[in-house]
């Protein structure tokens, strides 16, 4: 594939991610933080995030499976997930977390379960999206090009 074409595709894809609300400015800030000294910074952070989020989601699933749901614990997990998701700019995951916490306060198990499903869904969605993004970037890099910065 032509390098410029790939680059354009990357820009389009990235902007679509922003447009559809998967990502927000925080991700841009992350990208800005990446430079020659740590070229894989964004990738590392995102990987870290998904490890973390997977763990948290699993723990949430366990916690909600209990007979007597410990909402304090659930709330703490969701809070953590919210913090990390907002830090990488995974906006939709963060939004679900906000809603989730509200239900936690209401102690509504059923809605919490639904939120958890949504959380899983959003998480996997943003994961695939970001994986695609990274793959595109990788392709460009291997083709010898530079990654264009997304800017509005």
């Amino acid at each position: 594939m032509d390098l410029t074409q790939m680059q354009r595709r990357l820009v389009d894809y990235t902007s679509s991610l922003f447009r559809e609300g998967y990502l927000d400015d925080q991700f841009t800030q992350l990208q800005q933080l990446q430079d020659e000294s740590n070229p894989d910074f964004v990738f590392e952070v995102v990987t870290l995030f998904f490890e973390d989020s997977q763990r948290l989601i699993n723990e949430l699933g366990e916690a909600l499976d209990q007979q007597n749901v410990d909402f304090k614990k659930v709330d703490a997990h969701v809070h953590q997930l919210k913090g990390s998701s907002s830090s990488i700019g995974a906006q939709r995951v963060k939004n679900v977390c906000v809603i989730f916490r509200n239900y936690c306060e209401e102690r509504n198990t059923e809605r919490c379960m639904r939120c958890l499903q949504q959380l899983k869904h959003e998480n996997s969605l943003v994961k695939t999206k970001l994986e695609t993004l990274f793959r595109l970037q990788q392709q460009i890099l291997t083709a010898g090009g530079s990654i264009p910065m997304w800017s509005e």
Partner: protein
Amino acid sequence: MLAILIGMLTILTWHFTRVYTTKSINSLAYGLRYELLQRPILRMWNILNSTVEITMAQVKLSEYVIRRYDKPMAQTAKGEVYEVMRDVTWALFASRKALNAITISYRNGFVQAFHRDHRSNNTFYIYSDFANTSLTATRKSVSSHGGWNDQSLDDNVSAIWYREPLDPVTGKTTGNSKKIPPDDLIDIAGLSEVADGTASWHVTVSKYTNSPLLSAALPVWDSPNESIVAVVGVTTALYSVGQLMKELVDFHSGFMYLTSQEGYVLATSTNAPLLRNLSSGPKLMMAVDSEDHMIRLGARWLKRTYDDKFNPRNEIHAENVRLGKHQYYIDSFFLNLKRLPLVGVIIIPRSYVMGKVDQRAFTTLVILISASVCILVVGCVCILILTSGVSKEMKLRAELISHLDARRRAEASSNFKSQFLANMSHELRTPMAAVLGLLDILICDDCLSNEQYATVTQIRKCSTALLRLLNNILDLSKVESGKLVLEEAEFDLGRELEGLVDMFSVQCINHNVETVLDFSDDMPKLVLGDSARVVQIFANLISNSMKFTSSGHIILRGWCESSNTGTYTNKFPLDQKEPRSAVKAKSNQHGNHGKKTTKKDNKIVIWFEVDDSGCGIDASKWESVFESFEQADPSTTRTHGGTGLGLCIVRTLVNQMNGEIKVVKKDGPGTLMQLYLVLNTPVDALRQNDQVLFAEHNLTVLLSLNGTKGRSIMSCWLRKNGVQTFEASEWNELTQILQEILQGRNTIAKSSFKMQCSAIESSKAGEIEIGNLAAEFIIIVDIGLLDSSTNIWKEQLKFLEKYLGKAKFAWILNHDTNNAIKLELRRKGHSMVVNKPLYKAKMVQILEAVINERSLELHKNGLSTIQDNLHDSLEIPFNYDAASSEESDTSDGRGFNSISAFHVEPKLVERIMSPQSSRFNEVNNSLVELSVRPTSQNLPLKMVSSDRKEQNHVESCKVGPMKNSLEGLRILLAEDTPVLQKVATIMLEKLGAMVSAVGDGLQAVEALKYMSTAEEGRRRKLPMRDDETISPTHFHELPAFDLILMDCQVGKSLSFDASREMPKMDGYEATKAIRRFEEGTESHIPIVALTAHAMSSDEAKCLEVGMDAYLTKPIDCKLMLSTILVLTKRVL
């Protein structure tokens, strides 16, 4: 219960009254009845007795007569005997009127009798024929031993009886004797009746009387031979007994009767016949057959009741016997006469005896019953009233409960609202932070012209205001829930409000409205209070005025009503040392975060007025405009917009500051809002006197401004401060004055000051001039005076150029001033440019700049070189504007008193070194720098170091050059989320800081302790997370951390993780632990909180536990940087 009680009471009362009365009456009645009955019985007894007496008397007389005449016993003698007997008998008979008859029947059958007929009142003498007497006498002997039997009497029937009527009084025969059949008239007692020789009694009836008769018979004994010679019979009518009974009954009512033992009625109190006329002659009646109804009933009742065991000898006293329709008392008495026992019965109606009692009892009962019914009714009514009251109360209570419920629900919903707001504010802050950040980047851009720069600065200011507004939305919910807590921080009131007016003037100019700020000089510079709220109040008021004012002016006036005026109003003579030390003290104070701020009460009342010339508010609405969602004229909502909440918030805030706000009547159109606030002033702030005595510098100002109000206020103020002023409102006026003054000045014509100057001032000016200190002439020109629509303005500028050497020009620009004009101005060397509106602080700066310039001129004697440089340095007002609203409490723009004479020079040097740095110097215009600079004037080395710092500031605001701005800082990051940890670490490292990251609060505390105790370089492996980025060398190199970034929730979520044994701490606890650890030592490590919550309550909590600042997630790079710099500055 009550009813039962009342009923029982009634019945008891009635019972007692009745029972006792009844008892006494009964005993009385018994006596009465007894008495009543006793009397007829006594009468009877009397009658009987008298009858007996008569009989006895007759017998004795008869015996005597017969004995006397017994011997001769001749026929003639016999006749004599009979004659005597007749007389004797008559005498007896006449003496007793009650007697019915006296009969004497002799043995020989001769009969003599006197009879009294009560009906016809006739008296008769009845005798038998002599002829037959012998016959009977013979017969008598036959049966001498057999005694008198009936047979002999029956034989007598054949005898002839005669009757002679007699004169009842004399006993003389009045008529002829008639023959009558024997026994026809009366009962003649015969021998048979006295067979046993004793007296006999019986009751008889006769044809001629309708009452029974009592007859007694006694034999007349012949004394020698013991034989009965005659029988005497006496008959008495019982009529008189009946008469007595009648009388008694008439008086007492009731009924009485006497019966024989067999039950035959002898006498009654009624007129009913006592005899029955049968074919065989009249007969006695039984009482039960009596024709009188009552007697019959009574007798029947007696018979029925006592039928079998009826023993007449028993007296009967029966009460309440119902006969017919009434109740009666029935009593019977037994009179035991020999041979003739009698029974008396009295029937008395109950009503006679007990009538009154019964009636009384009845009425008593009725009264009692009615009374009890009344009481019952009243009681019921009372109970009803009572219960209705109670039920009303219950209803109210229920209502109250429901209200409480509703309130609780409302509170809950309000809680949800504030939750929502918290989330929303978080969402809104993020884009706002981005906008601000981008603006910062833009400001850092090199290729901006001054105008662009000013615009961007303005945008940034507006954005900041918007962000503030967002925070205010949060606070409004707090105000509503009454939880608003006002800050108590030192701030520059004037600076804040000037910034506000600057902000609004942008909109204001578009409207062709003049915004004027008019503060009296006695306003305290620094006050303690909540600057944000104060600004909010005025922002609301001014924007309101702006909305409703289409042309004219908006004036914000302020003056002070000080409680300790004495110390305050004194105008301090300009002292070189005093202000400087004050400034230093202040910077110190600021560094220690208000530690030294004395909390001594220094309350002052500051009055404000917002005066506009808009459409005004109707007087009737002056109160209601402060209500929620209220606008004076609802129709204006469409044209002006707005929610109507503004004034409500304003009033709430003002009240919170112990103030009051009201609309005041004003002359002319528009609205005048008056309010006062009670604020504290720091004690030392009172000593700060920034008044420059411009009079010393002999200044003359020509104010050529469009706005009348602003101009007059300004000139007033200037004159008060000893500055001569001229006013011009349009171009022609300006030129006229210029020509007059400046040309006149050349010839030293004192008369040219005639317009505005006082005599003293003018003479002083003259003196100064003579002293080779030429008075400075300043011309302040509003750009609006130039005709910018055509090209005439170029001509006008050229005209003014002539005076450039003689006077200093200051230009006042509009925001929409044409770029060409600006360029031209700059080209021509007009470097003093300020933005509208012109207010005191700007004026002061202009004047100071002029003074400084002049002193520089004097100092350097090189006017021409300075002129170039002035271009930059005199843009102070611009930069000052930009800084004013953001860093009001750190910068002190009016600190240029006499010290500022030195101020310009270092700036110039700075300018040479880095052309764009001065702006940022001003952005971060802090007192530290200001106070350092004058001293550094003669020490180039130090100045460089100060520049270096400024350099940092400059870089800090850019993404690129901000690298290493944190060079050398050692930061401990306590954050449990690996992602955040990584991001924050990279961010900080990019800025040049050295970062040690730990996973929870405990580790942070331990790391800190380790650092402070083991500075010798002992290396110890701390329990850290896998991904922690701390390198061992850091530990080695660094004696301590400069700053800690602490996630508030750090470790909290992990503490649920069972696999980790170590007890964790969250950020709050860790901070507390660190502060405890620091106790007693001099060190104070700054701790910055990181939290995902945007509520200011979290902020309060953070600050409470000892944290120094507060950042919200996601981390905003610039905000973090500036926070860190502020905090570490004093450590460095």
